[in-house]
C-alpha cells in the first residue's frame, strides 16, 4: 500500500492532536500527585504521618497510591442527583468547568519548537498571537461552571458557595487582566512564546522589570482558583463544601481535576510571564541547541518550565497551610479597593517610564 504524502496542514493537525493527548495524559496525573503532596506536606508541617499505607504489594511508596485508590473509589460510587436539581445543568456544570481549563493549559508554550522528520512543530498546542487575551477569556468561561453547579443543585450551601466563588473569581479577573498589561507594554507582544523569547536574559525577566505586576498576579493566582487563603467558597466550617456539595462520584472528581489543572496552568503562566518560561537562567538557548541539538534542548526546556511551575504548585500548598482564611469583606476590599487602583497606577507609571526612556 502506498502511503499518502503528508502536507504541512495534515502534519500540523496530527501534531496538534498528539500534543493535546500528551498534555491531557500529563495533566490527568497532576491531581493524584498534588493531592498526595497536599496531604503529606501538612503532615510534615504538623508532625503527623499523613497517608502512608496504600502502596504496591510490599512497597508502600510513602502512600503515593492513596489518591489513585481514592479515584478508583470515586468512579465506583453511585451517582446520586438531588431530586429537585435542574438535571441538564447539573450534568453540564463539571464539563463547563473542565473544558476551559484544558483550553488554558493547552495554550501554554511548554518549550521551544522541535523538529521531526524536517517538520517544525511548536510545543504549545494552541499558539495564538493574542495568547494572553485568549487565556483571560477562557478563565472567564470557567466561572460559568461554578455558577451553574451551585444553581442547578438547588441546595443552600451549593448556592451560597457558588455565589461567593463566582463573585470572587470575576472580581479578581480584573486585577489579573491589569497585571499583564505592563508586560505587554514592556515586551510589545501578547504572544506567550514571543514573551518568553523577549526574556532571554535574567535581568529582563518580568519579575525584575515589573515586580508590582508579579505581586498582583500572585495574589490573583490564589484568588482565581479559590484556594486558601481565599477559599471562602468552600469554607468547610460554614458551607460544607461550597458549590460542589451535591456532587459525588466521577463528577466530583471532575471538579477536583479542573481545580488542579487550573492551578497548574496558572503556575505555568506565572513562570512564562515572570520567570523566563522554559529558559534556564544564565544559559542561553542557542548554547543548549549547539550542545544537545534542537530536540534535546527542547526537552530540557520543558523540564525547566515544569520545574518552575512545580515551585508555584508547592507555593499553593505552602500558603494553604500557613495563612488563615480571609473574611469575605476583606477579600472583596483587597480586590476592588487595593489591587484594582494599584494595577491601574502600575500601568500608568510603566507607560510613563517607558515613554521617558524611549524619548
Amino acid at each position, binding site marked *: 500500500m502506498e502511503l499518502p504524502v503528508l502536507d*504541512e496542514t495534515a502534519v*500540523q*493537525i496530527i501534531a*496538534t492532536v498528539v500534543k*493535546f493527548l500528551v498534555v*491531557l495524559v500529563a495533566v490527568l496525573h497532576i491531581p493524584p500527585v498534588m493531592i498526595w503532596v497536599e496531604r503529606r506536606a501538612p503532615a510534615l508541617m504538623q508532625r503527623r504521618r499523613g497517608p502512608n499505607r496504600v502502596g504496591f504489594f510490599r512497597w508502600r511508596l510513602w502512600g503515593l497510591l492513596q489518591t489513585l485508590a481514592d479515584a478508583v473509589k470515586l*468512579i*465506583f460510587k*453511585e*451517582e*446520586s*442527583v438531588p*431530586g429537585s*436539581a435542574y438535571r441538564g445543568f447539573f*450534568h453540564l456544570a*463539571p*464539563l463547563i468547568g*473542565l*473544558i476551559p481549563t*484544558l*483550553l488554558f493549559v493547552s495554550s501554554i508554550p511548554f518549550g521551544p519548537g522541535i523538529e521531526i522528520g524536517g517538520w517544525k512543530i511548536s510545543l504549545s*498546542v*494552541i499558539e*495564538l498571537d493574542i495568547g*494572553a*487575551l485568549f487565556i483571560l477569556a477562557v478563565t472567564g468561561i470557567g466561572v460559568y461552571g461554578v455558577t451553574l453547579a451551585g444553581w442547578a*443543585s*438547588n*441546595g*443552600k*450551601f451549593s*448556592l451560597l458557595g457558588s*455565589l461567593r466563588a463566582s*463573585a470572587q473569581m470575576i472580581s479578581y*479577573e*480584573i486585577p489579573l*487582566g*491589569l497585571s499583564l498589561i505592563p508586560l*505587554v507594554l514592556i515586551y*510589545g*507582544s*501578547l504572544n506567550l512564546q514571543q514573551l518568553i523569547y523577549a526574556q532571554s536574559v535574567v535581568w529582563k525577566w518580568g519579575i525584575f522589570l515589573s515586580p508590582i505586576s508579579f505581586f498582583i498576579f500572585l495574589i490573583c493566582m490564589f484568588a482565581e482558583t479559590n484556594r486558601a487563603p481565599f477559599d471562602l467558597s468552600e469554607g468547610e466550617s460554614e458551607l*460544607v463544601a461550597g458549590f460542589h456539595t451535591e456532587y*459525588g*462520584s*466521577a*463528577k466530583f472528581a*471532575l471538579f477536583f481535576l479542573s481545580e488542579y489543572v487550573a492551578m497548574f496552568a496558572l503556575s505555568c503562566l506565572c513562570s512564562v510571564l515572570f520567570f523566563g518560561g522554559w529558559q534556564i537562567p544564565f544559559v542561553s538557548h542557542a548554547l543548549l541547541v549547539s550542545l544537545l541539538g534542537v530536540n534535546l534542548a527542547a526537552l530540557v526546556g520543558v523540564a525547566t518550565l515544569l520545574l518552575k511551575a512545580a515551585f508555584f504548585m508547592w507555593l499553593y500548598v505552602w500558603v494553604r497551610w500557613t495563612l488563615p482564611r480571609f473574611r*469575605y*469583606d476583606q477579600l*472583596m*476590599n483587597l480586590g*476592588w479597593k487595593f489591587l*484594582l*487602583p494599584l494595577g491601574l497606577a502600575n*500601568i*500608568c507609571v510603566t*507607560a*510613563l517610564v517607558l*515613554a521617558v526612556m524611549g524619548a
Partner: protein
Amino acid sequence: MHPYLPVLIVLAVALVIGLVMSFLSAFFGPKVPSAVKQEVFECGVPELGSRERMSVRFYLTAILFILFDIETVFLYLWARTFKSLGWFGIVEIFVFVAILVAGYVYVLKRKALEWE
C-alpha cells in the same frame, strides 16, 4: 493551518473525554435510589430548597465586573500598539483612565463595593 483550528480540535477532544469521564460512575457505580438519598444536603433538617432571592451585592459585583473588564480589554489594544502611538497614545490613555477613575470614585462613594 489556520491558528484557531487547534482551538476547535482541543474543544472537540476535551468534550469527548470530559463526557466519557463524567459518565464513568453511571456505568460502573451501583444504582440504588431512595427518597432520602435524593434530598439536597442541608445537615439533616427537612429540605427547604434555595430558589429564592439572593443578595443584591452579587448582581452589583457582576455589573461592575463587566464595566471594568471591558476597560481592561481596551487597555490591551493600547498596550499592544503603545510603541507606535508614542506620546499621543499616552495622553489619550491617561484621559481614558481619568474618566474611568472618576467612575470608580463614584462607585466607591455610593458604597456599591461595601460588604458587611
